[in-house]
């Protein structure tokens, strides 16, 4: 199964990410966002960053999760290579996601380009039943 696929969208970057589970689809969505700025396959897995986000619904959870990539890039120059141990659970009225980001700090050995300004709710779709799918438009 393909991890993710981009679609024609005039101004922004629209993609779908797939997985047997919702966790896997979220994981692949993170790789799709990274792919807009660097080739995640070429980033060394030297650093681990534990990530925890929450959301009032799955869409907010997905936005908050993917925004974490942008936040870590801006504040720690962290380039994501892989997402591991991702788990989503419900606690009262909140969804909580935990995961480990693996990657490396930016150096001039890596080519990065483009700018993802934000993850938007525009045209967002989440299919919770297997095969799971999330559709996201990133503001670039």
């Amino acid at each position, binding site marked *: 199964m393909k991890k993710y696929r*981009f*679609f*024609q*969208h*005039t*101004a*922004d*970057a*629209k993609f779908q990410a797939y997985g047997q589970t919702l966790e896997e689809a979220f994981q692949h969505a993170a790789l799709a966002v990274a792919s*807009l*700025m660097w080739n995640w396959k070429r980033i060394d897995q030297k650093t681990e960053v534990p990530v925890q986000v929450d959301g*009032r619904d799955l*869409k*907010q959870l997905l*936005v*908050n999760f993917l*925004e974490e990539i*942008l*936040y870590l*890039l*801006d*504040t720690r*120059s962290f*380039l994501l290579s892989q997402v591991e141990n991702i788990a989503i659970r419900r606690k009262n009225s909140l969804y909580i996601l935990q995961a480990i980001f693996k990657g490396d700090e*930016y150096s001039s050995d890596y*080519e*990065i*380009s*483009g*700018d993802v*300004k*934000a*993850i*938007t*709710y*525009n045209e*967002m779709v989440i299919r919770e039943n297997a095969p799971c799918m999330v559709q996201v*438009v990133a*503001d*670039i």
Partner: protein
Amino acid sequence: MELKKINEYTWEIPKHGDMKVPAIVYASEALLQSIRRDLTLPQAKNVACLRGIQRKAYVMPDAHQGYGFPIGGVAAFDMDEGVISPGGVGYDINCGVRLLRTDFMEKDVLEKRKLLLEGIFREVPAGVGKGGTTRLSRRVLEEVCTKGAEWAVNNGYGTRDDLLKTEENGRMKEADPSFLSKRAVERGIPQLGTLGAGNHFLEIQKVSEIYDKEVAGVFGIHSLGQIMIMIHCGSRGFGHQVASDYIRNMENKFGIRGLPDRELINAPIRSNLGTQYYKSMSAAVNFAFANRQMIAHWVRDVFSKIMGSSKGMDQVYDVCHNVAKFEQHDIEGKMKEVCIHRKGATRSFGPGRKEIPEAYRAVGQPVLIPGSMGTASYILVGTSEAERISFGSTAHGAGRVMSRHEALRRFRGEAIKQELEQKGIELRSTSWKGVAEEAPQAYKDVDEVVRISHKAGIGRLVAKVVPMGVMKG
């Protein structure tokens, strides 16, 4: 969506369904074709449904689909009944354009433009994920947020005259950093004084046409071949975080039921959350003014070193094209304060408005419209007609017609650099991929956008500039 033709350049979405007012689109048949291809018009309709909207919702000639509001969307709201929406400003708060004039001519810089571009490339940090050379403390960041470009001038970047020639004099007084999230502050600290990436650029340009000699003269533009500097960037990750934070805060407070689009989330202007967003957004506006102020200073430094002097490198103007503000506008024959949102639109005030620098008040405000990388950019002048028919607003740029993904599939960065070199344009970028993604062919025809602005009367043509050297993030 059904459109009623008003005249050759004006179209109306008549009031229907939940719309509180009609929506007006300024476009030619050609531009309308591309506007119709995406969700621009349904999004304009959604805006027209919001509480307290005044007169009409407006769509500029370069409009395309956004999130919540379309890009190129303008709407004003009653201060008591109306709302403020982060999606009506956009993620890149105070993305904008600064233009410097010079006394140099094409022949003066032709031989040295490579050196100049190299110099600028060294001095101005750019590219995604790269921080600036100025590492701030939290306290200093707060001062930047409060004072904007004034902070930069106080710290040796540029002159008082620059402030006079900046929208809002480079400082929105309502800014208050106390409502910023920790994450926004963290993202702001490393990014002040950076150009960024994506569609942002810095260009050494030459004047290639003057349409209105008198007004051009007032703006300091006298001759064909005169060298200009254009800087296009915004508030970087700091502004993006402010937008995301307040979309989330408003969702959590008000819920999303009944919203046709989640980024239309909004708060009453005078509510706590509305006020906090406005003050935080103003802080991001100020951050972006300071950012462009610092970059302009470094460019002058490089010219000083290489050309021997930066004399005459005065600021023409600095405009925001993603912002919300409280402004006075004519509502049913009476001037009243409204909360105007310009998302991908430039203020375009005509003669006499007190917001315009004194030096320009007799002719109107300079409107700076950047093209895409390697294409022409334009200087327009605001009009009284714009105040009457678009809340004093016009277009903001070219606007994409092709996704970055598609551009990457079709173009190669190296080939584009060669193409530009054949046209006499030098290019420096942090990434080939970035160059391909920003290929000029991926954008709308900026010439057509400004022509419609001129014809519709919402911003009159003054001069055209073309690049000699381009720096991309």
